[in-house]
């Protein structure tokens, strides 16, 4: 049995049941488009999470009595901690200079006389998960010479937790979309099998094996999935253009800034991904159907 023959037979089915093809193509491309959106959302959430986590740093406020030697020892202890990625020491003078930029604060500080600001150390951690940051901050607070220590605090914490929750919700959505696509393909193939009982009977009576009858249907499923993926990619690209246009005009946000390596690359990778995903879902759907309808 040659592959060429199977593909020809699959295209014969494509040609024959035009309306079923349209229905399955429509359903497939919608599911895949939604799946593509889910993917974009997931990627966005992932990037946002990274972005927020990147900003997280722990600040230790030092008391004034430590002195130069104490400070060096303190900084060395911190640098040796396995979780620490980098430390920046902000002296009292530097803190004063940073705050003096604002004329109002400057006036206020001048009125106080002297320098009331504490020296501090800004510490970046290697792993910025909430648990990790909290544990490190507690450890830091108990070091000698540390007045107090804090990190971005509850806000960042809550946001990260919310994002994690959204990520789960989006994943659940993706799973149901995948199932919907598989179910649609499976049912359409079942319809095609019913419509072709007689033909299948004839093929069997002249000696066709089960796989000979199944093969074209499996290829049909793959073709449908791939075409749906291609259509979905086109629709998503169009949607992107529209959204980007309005967000630039109405909100003055240039969405292209979020695609650092260029829109074309994202489009090509996305299209390939959608076609591949579609083919796999199409194959899965047709396998479900032929397993059910075409037993020996």
């Amino acid at each position, binding site marked *: *049995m*040659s592959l060429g023959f199977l593909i020809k037979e699959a295209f014969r089915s494509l040609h024959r049941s035009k309306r079923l093809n349209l229905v399955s193509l429509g359903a497939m491309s919608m599911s895949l488009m939604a799946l593509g959106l889910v993917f974009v959302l997931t990627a966005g959430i992932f990037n946002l999470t990274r972005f927020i986590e990147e900003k997280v740093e722990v600040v230790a406020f030092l008391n004034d009595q430590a002195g130069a030697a104490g400070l060096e020892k303190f900084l060395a202890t911190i640098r040796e901690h396995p979780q620490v990625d980098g430390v920046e020491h902000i002296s009292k003078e530097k803190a004063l200079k940073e705050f003096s930029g604002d004329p109002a604060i400057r006036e206020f500080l001048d009125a106080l006389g002297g320098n009331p600001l504490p020296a501090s150390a800004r510490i970046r951690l290697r792993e910025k998960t909430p648990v990790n940051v909290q544990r490190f901050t507690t450890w830091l607070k108990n070091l000698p010479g540390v007045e107090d220590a804090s990190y971005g605090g509850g806000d960042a914490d809550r946001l990260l937790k919310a994002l994690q929750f959204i990520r789960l919700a989006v994943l659940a959505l993706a799973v149901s979309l995948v199932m919907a696509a598989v179910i649609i393909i499976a049912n359409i193939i079942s319809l095609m099998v019913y419509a072709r009982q007689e033909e299948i009977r004839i093929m069997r*009576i002249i*000696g066709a094996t089960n796989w000979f009858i199944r093969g074209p249907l499996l290829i049909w499923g793959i073709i449908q999935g791939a075409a749906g993926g291609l259509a979905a990619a086109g629709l998503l690209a169009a949607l992107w253009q529209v959204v980007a246009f309005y967000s630039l005009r109405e909100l003055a946000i240039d969405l292209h800034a979020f695609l650092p390596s260029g829109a074309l690359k994202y489009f090509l990778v996305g299209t390939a991904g959608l076609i591949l995903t579609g083919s796999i879902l199409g194959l899965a759907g047709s396998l479900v159907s032929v397993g059910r309808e075409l037993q020996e």
Partner: protein
Amino acid sequence: MLQFHHVYMTYQNEFKALRDINLEIPRGEFVMITGPSGAGKSTLIKLICREMLPTKGQVIVDDHNVAKLKPRQIPFFRRRIGVVFQDFRLLYDRTVAENVALALYVTGYAGRTINREVNQALKKVGLEKKGKLKPWHLSGGEMQRVVLARAMVHDPPLLLADEPTGNLDFATGWEVMRLLRQVTETGTTVVCTTHNLNFIQKMRKRTLFIDKGIIRGEKKAGQVL
């Protein structure tokens, strides 16, 4: 090649189509079956190609009891049988050539030789010019000959022809008969049903007479009626 041992066939509506059929057909023989309409000729043919299983008794083809074939063996069993169905069983959305080629594709033939084999088979039945037509555009007799071409194209060792001349004039029908006789010369076994006593007379082959599901008589090869 072919044996029936006390074969009974009762349809679901309790109709007894065949009763206590006993048969032995050696390899390479040409056997004709005749009898009135409704006698059970097509039923007998369908039992041989395992389209149905007998209610009782054994049908042995090529040393296989057809009732004992495993599902995965059935396609390979059927490829060794060519059948001219009385009701044609053509695929009407495929061309004549595609219909004939299907018997080869199903058997796992390589793509390149297919066209040649198909053309040869169509030529044998006198339809070499009709390959590109859909079966709808053929006359009844032409359709029947397409079915014959499909049944013979893969040179099966057993050829079952159910009323292969039913829609043909005497001259064309006789051509078909000669064709069937020809294939027995290469060792193919042929079982052919017909209503036409003229053919039975002219062929001088072994002939079984069935009526109401029972074999009523037999004419040996060479005998005249």
